[in-house]
């Protein structure tokens, strides 16, 4: 299956994103109307049947998450959209918000009805001030049109912290605190924003809901790979001819993404590696390119689907240098709350800098692997748990590159 299929981006280029009338003319807000005609239980059951899983990187079952928040007893509940999009190589959520913001608002409203929430927040990263502007205007228009009913949505700005992509750090940030993750459990659906039951979902996850309600859960569940159905928006960057985005069914393979959609490697160079899912993703060698991009298929090869960033490197690239730069990223972005991440990211960055500058030792590689193992099980949140992956996977697949710098 190698054709683009636009579900979340179905209105891309077809409407004026700042004209809600355009969205409505395309059938917008019919899905919300339908959702509101169903019982909350039936609505959540429908979302469960679709098997929609989170598109932010964690891949948690959407309907399942909503059912937890629905079941929680509280007079106040919240719907929060994670629009922090800090994952290097990723701009899919920006595409959705810039080109079809109403799809996000409608998806959030469907969730709000399902769980019984009256207030929603879109936490949009501070690096997207133009997007925040668009979202504010879209909300104004939706409110004026009356389509949101009694659901109120407010945009909150991030301020430059990758860790705020983690749902509890994001919640802390909305509450006006440092973006430090919380211990889980409790999970946000039972205790989230200001202690209330909260659904945090990614932009792309929400944007899928209108189509699912319109066309039916069975339709969605039949697209792509059964364990992670539907489509995924991929953003291609690095050494690739078509440095742009594609929305494809989840049974597309990595090879198809890079060669069919991506147009292959520029200047006749050979492929070296691709990092998928963001900057904590594994570096994948040529031998694994025939893997379908769906969540579980990627986990099976020790890689991640993550955010859908596709960062390609050609044969001329110094992969140790790239891994060292990424190690610097994680040192910078570590929030500092837990010792294994605060200390671990700093040490990985230090060791990688030494290796990259030619002062490394073979024993450094064993130390990095051990440190990576320890961090993957002891860090408080996904940032620290995943930070070692680019270093560990490049040592595994490109040992010769490291040895060349050491010996």
């Amino acid at each position, binding site marked *: 299956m190698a054709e683009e299929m636009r579900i979340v981006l179905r209105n891309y280029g077809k409407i004026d994103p700042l004209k809600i009338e355009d969205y409505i003319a395309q059938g917008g807000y019919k899905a919300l109307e339908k959702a509101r005609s169903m019982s909350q239980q039936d609505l959540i059951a429908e979302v469960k049947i679709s098997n929609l899983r989170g598109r932010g990187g964690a891949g948690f079952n959407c309907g399942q998450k909503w059912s937890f928040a629905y079941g929680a007893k509280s007079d106040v509940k919240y719907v929060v959209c994670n629009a922090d999009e800090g994952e*290097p*190589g*990723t701009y899919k959520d920006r595409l959705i918000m810039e080109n079809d913001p109403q799809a996000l608002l409608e998806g959030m409203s469907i969730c709000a009805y399902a769980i019984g929430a009256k207030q929603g927040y879109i936490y949009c990263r501070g*690096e997207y001030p133009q997007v925040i502007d668009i979202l504010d205007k879209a909300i104004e228009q939706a409110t004026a049109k009356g389509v949101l009913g009694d659901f109120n949505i407010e945009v909150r*700005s991030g301020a430059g912290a990758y860790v705020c992509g983690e749902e509890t750090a994001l919640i802390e940030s909305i509450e*006006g605190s440092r973006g430090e993750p919380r211990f889980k459990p409790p999970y946000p659906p039972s205790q989230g924003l200001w202690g209330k039951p909260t659904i945090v979902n990614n932009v792309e996850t929400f944007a899928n809901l209108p189509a699912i309600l319109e066309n039916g859960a069975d339709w969605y569940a039949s697209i792509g790979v059964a364990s992670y159905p539907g489509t995924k928006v991929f*953003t291609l960057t690095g050494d690739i001819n078509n440095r*742009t985005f594609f929305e494809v069914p989840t049974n597309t393979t990595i090879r198809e993404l890079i060669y069919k959609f991506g147009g292959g490697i520029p200047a006749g160079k050979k492929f070296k590696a691709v990092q998928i899912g963001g900057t904590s993703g594994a570096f994948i060698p040529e031998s694994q390119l025939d893997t379908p991009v769906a969540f579980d298929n990627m986990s099976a090869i020790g890689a991640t689907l993550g955010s859908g960033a596709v960062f390609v490197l050609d044969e001329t690239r110094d992969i140790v240098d790239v891994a060292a*730069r990424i190690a610097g990223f994680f040192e910078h972005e570590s929030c500092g709350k837990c010792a294994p991440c605060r200390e671990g990211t700093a040490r990985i960055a230090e060791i990688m800098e030494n290796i990259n500058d030619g002062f490394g030792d073979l024993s450094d590689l064993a130390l990095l692997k051990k440190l990576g193992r320890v961090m993957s099980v002891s860090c408080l949140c996904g940032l620290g748990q995943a930070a070692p992956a680019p270093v560990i996977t490049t040592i595994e697949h490109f040992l010769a590159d490291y040895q060349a710098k050491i010996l």
Partner: protein
Amino acid sequence: MDYKEIIASYADKPGGIIEAFHAVQSQLSYLPREVIAEAAQVFKIPVSEAYGVASFYSMFSIEARGKNIIRICESAPCHVAGAAEVVQALERELGIFMGESTADGLFALEFTECVGQCQSTPVITVNGEPYLDVNAATIPQILAKYR
């Protein structure tokens, strides 16, 4: 509006200190001590906590800096696309090093991590506005806009 008025306008927003800091910073370019102290008062938190928020987020600065904030992305996709050359060009054009501000107070030069324009690497932003497919040759005309 002076900073006290700006902060006061966010007083009723639960957790609104980050919004307030953004608003003040868009005028003053950074968050002086008195702004942090005022925010602590208005949002009813200890000054240490307000300072903790101001010092946590990379978009906020607690030190004075130039009026126009130039940020160059150094994340992996921009790194391989030639961010280092753009850094050199900026340092040369402005006569300062990364992390510094020009003596006339017009520009501040900082690194940032990914700003989500990875289709057009390398990328810089000036006051939050992205400039795409940047290279050493295009830097002078970008800077000219702000002089």
